[in-house]
């Protein structure tokens, strides 16, 4: 029976099911086929592609690199974002202006800014090495060495997404209740103690939410890498998404890349759920 309550839900639900669910089911089917440049179409080769995924060292390395990259960048974003939010939370001179300024990077297109960052990190003509040179530091091989490229991606990620942490955490700080602070002041707690015993526990739910949202988004990283380093030098900055992209849309191994992407999806869902559970126990457990 269609009633008025279905008028609200059904359009969106059906749209999403049509656009997402069918492609997903299709990917699952394709992953059991040998579809590639030579053989297009849906044959059935069993779990052969999956066997290949588990033996594919390059994929597992990309996954390890992705984990390292997202864990480091999200921790940096959180720490810096929280520090910035705390710094402009109470009245500061020019606070309004600083807030707007700090939000701007997350509004900019990652690939477009990566194009600019690439010129910044240019070894001989870019300002990064020029400025370091003013302090007597020799030229850093930003994009041509494995460590340099990894750090460059990290810097760009922190620049781009710290504002997102800042936004969520500041919005949280603004809506905190006043009473616990009065109580802390009466107890004579200093700035440091007030932060650890009042602010941090009150912010725990928002902290968990913000960390998880950012980890989800970071696990998909590929735009920045594509423009900044193309996964290089070698495979030094190749993330999972980027590796699957190479296999699927460049080498055109459709069947194999479908299997890769499904394994990747399952690993992401499982590990993000585990991280979410751990965070909940760690942070909320402490409050209770």
């Amino acid at each position, binding site marked *: 029976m269609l009633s008025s309550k279905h008028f609200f*839900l059904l359009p969106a639900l059906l749209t999403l099911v049509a656009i997402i669910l069918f492609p997903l089911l299709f990917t699952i089917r394709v992953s059991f086929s040998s579809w590639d440049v030579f053989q297009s179409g849906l044959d059935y080769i069993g779990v052969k592609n999956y066997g290949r995924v588990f033996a594919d060292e390059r994929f597992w390395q990309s996954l390890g690199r992705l984990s390292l990259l997202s864990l480091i960048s999200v921790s940096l974003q959180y720490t*810096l974002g929280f520090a*910035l939010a705390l710094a402009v939370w109470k009245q500061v001179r020019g606070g309004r202006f600083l807030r707007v300024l700090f939000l701007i990077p997350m*509004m900019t297109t990652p690939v477009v800014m990566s194009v600019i960052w690439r010129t910044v990190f240019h070894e001989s003509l870019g300002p990064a090495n020029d400025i370091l040179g003013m302090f007597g530091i020799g030229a850093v091989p930003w994009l041509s060495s494995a460590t340099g490229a990894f750090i460059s991606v990290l810097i760009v990620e922190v620049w781009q997404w710290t504002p997102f942490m800042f936004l969520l955490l500041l919005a949280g700080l603004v809506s905190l209740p006043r009473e616990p602070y009065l109580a802390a002041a009466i107890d004579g707690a200093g700035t440091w103690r007030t932060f650890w015993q009042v602010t941090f526990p009150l912010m725990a739910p928002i902290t968990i939410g913000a960390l998880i949202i950012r980890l*989800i988004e970071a696990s998909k990283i590929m735009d920045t890498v594509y423009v900044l380093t193309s996964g290089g030098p070698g495979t030094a900055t190749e993330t999972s998404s980027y590796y699957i992209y190479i296999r699927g849309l460049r080498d055109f191994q459709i069947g194999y890349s479908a299997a890769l992407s499904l394994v990747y999806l399952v690993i992401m869902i499982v590990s993000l759920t585990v991280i979410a559970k751990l965070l909940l126990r760690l942070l909320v457990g402490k409050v209770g």
Partner: protein
Amino acid sequence: MNKFYHILKTLFLFGWSLFVVFPFLWALTTSFKDANAITSGATYIPWVDYEPSTQGWTSLFTTGSQGINIVGPFIDSAAVTLIASLVSLALGTLAAYGLSRFEYRLGFVKNSDITFFFISQRIMPPIVLAIPFFLMLKELGALDTIFGLVLVYVALLLPIAVWVMTDFFAGIPKELDEMAMTDGCSPIGAFFRVILPNSVPGLVVAGMFCLIFGWNDFFFAFTLTFTETQLLPVSIVSLNSSVTPWWSLSAFALISVAPLACVAVIVERYMSRGTMSGAIR
């Protein structure tokens, strides 16, 4: 102690501000350089360090082999982003209202499961859907069209709209609907006459997030369009891989990030009013 703290804070805020504006300032100064100024190493101040030229900016509005046309991609980007955001916002708002006011049940599936289904789509890495999307749009004859991209972007943005609006409606008291309905409105009438006009702050926040994620997407535009439809992020990346001079690249980048940088002002206003806090939990 307190003074030390204050100095530390000021230094931190100053340092971070510098880091934030640096790439923009660098792009701005580069956009006024010519070949000589670029190849002589990093320079910063026009007239002092180098003689400024406007070719970076003029080349963007010149058509033909000499120019890089930014107008076409800008219009395509704006069209896709705006249409997809509006559609997602409309569908998402209706669904969020339904989920916050009625009970749906399909076997063991409850409201909370449906909400989770919507929001969980954000976890899906774009690469998982890229190939089926490609084949699906090919079947529909919608590859390389604005329509095809809008379709895909709706799937991308709908979860965001549902997520923000569900939280927003949870904060609007149900008595408001009930009052409208005792006045003789149908549930649908109550939504359009009473609830919707009271939802502007939520709609603004949700709409902004849709605009940000739509305008800034690169991957789907990159895999699903070629020559007929070109969005800004894809055009700049294809410029980047050819021998396009830095001055045009910089000017192009500045123009394509400018519209959303202005959105930051609106976000800040809603944040300091506290309307954002409900939307993020």
